[in-house]
């Protein structure tokens, strides 16, 4: 049985682009649980983009650097994809906070260029 039985991906084609930065709300973390992340596939067709997963700190819910903590990061060059292993056969634990019912998890995209660029992400995770 697969460990990471949940998946979130996006954005719908053509619906979003990233300039210098963009916070994507991946949603509310299930109350009393944390999300345990297996891998993330990051694609940046048009320009170099840094993909960073962040979890809200306890009792926080805003998508800001102050209210979140980075739990992964990777830079992907224009026209490339990268499958980032965030599990390493169980050797690392990439997880959000255990939610009190208000915390979200976020994908922060940053770029040195403010020109609009498309992107895609696909994250496999589970409830812990």
């Amino acid at each position, binding site marked *: 049985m697969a*460990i990471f039985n949940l998946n979130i991906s996006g954005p719908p084609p053509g619906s979003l682009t990233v300039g210098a930065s963009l916070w994507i709300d991946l949603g509310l973390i299930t109350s009393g649980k944390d999300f*345990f992340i297996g891998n993330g596939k990051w694609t940046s067709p048009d320009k*170099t983009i*840094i993909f960073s997963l962040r979890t809200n700190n306890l009792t926080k819910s805003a998508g800001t650097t102050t209210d979140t*903590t*980075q*739990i*992964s*990061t*990777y*830079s*992907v*060059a224009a026209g490339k994809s*990268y499958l*980032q*292993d965030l599990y*390493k056969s*169980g*050797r*690392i*634990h990439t997880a959000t906070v255990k939610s009190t019912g208000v915390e979200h998890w976020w994908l922060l995209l940053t770029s*040195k260029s403010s020109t609009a660029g498309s992107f895609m992400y696909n994250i496999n995770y*589970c409830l*812990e």
Partner: protein
Amino acid sequence: MADMNPLFNIFYSGSGVTTTKDDWYDLGYYGGISPIPTGRQMFLGYVVTIAEDKNLIFEIRPNIIGQSTGTIANTILRGYAAVQSGLSDPGDLYNNGYVNTLAPITGVSTGVEKLWLRVRSGSNVAGAFDFMVYYNLL
């Protein structure tokens, strides 16, 4: 699912801007452990390094026993990656258990030794960088 017992259960996560050709960063500054606690040894697993603006060379260097400063003489190279501008490097210091990357290398900390990230480049132009270092304390 069962409780996780990950081998590398602590990480440093940070970013900075290097403005010289050779900068040293005490990783403890980034919310991690520094100096390495007395009687303990760090077991290093994985590193992610990002060079945002220019090509950079990243080095992971623990102090030798009894030293605490970030200099070539007082540290030993234990991880290394050259990263092109805009790219990342997923460094594996563990290699499925085939490599034992420790800090300090030759024994436990006396309470003063640190773990350093040395960032080098071919120019003095400012360049942003990011990193994550996954480790454990033995």
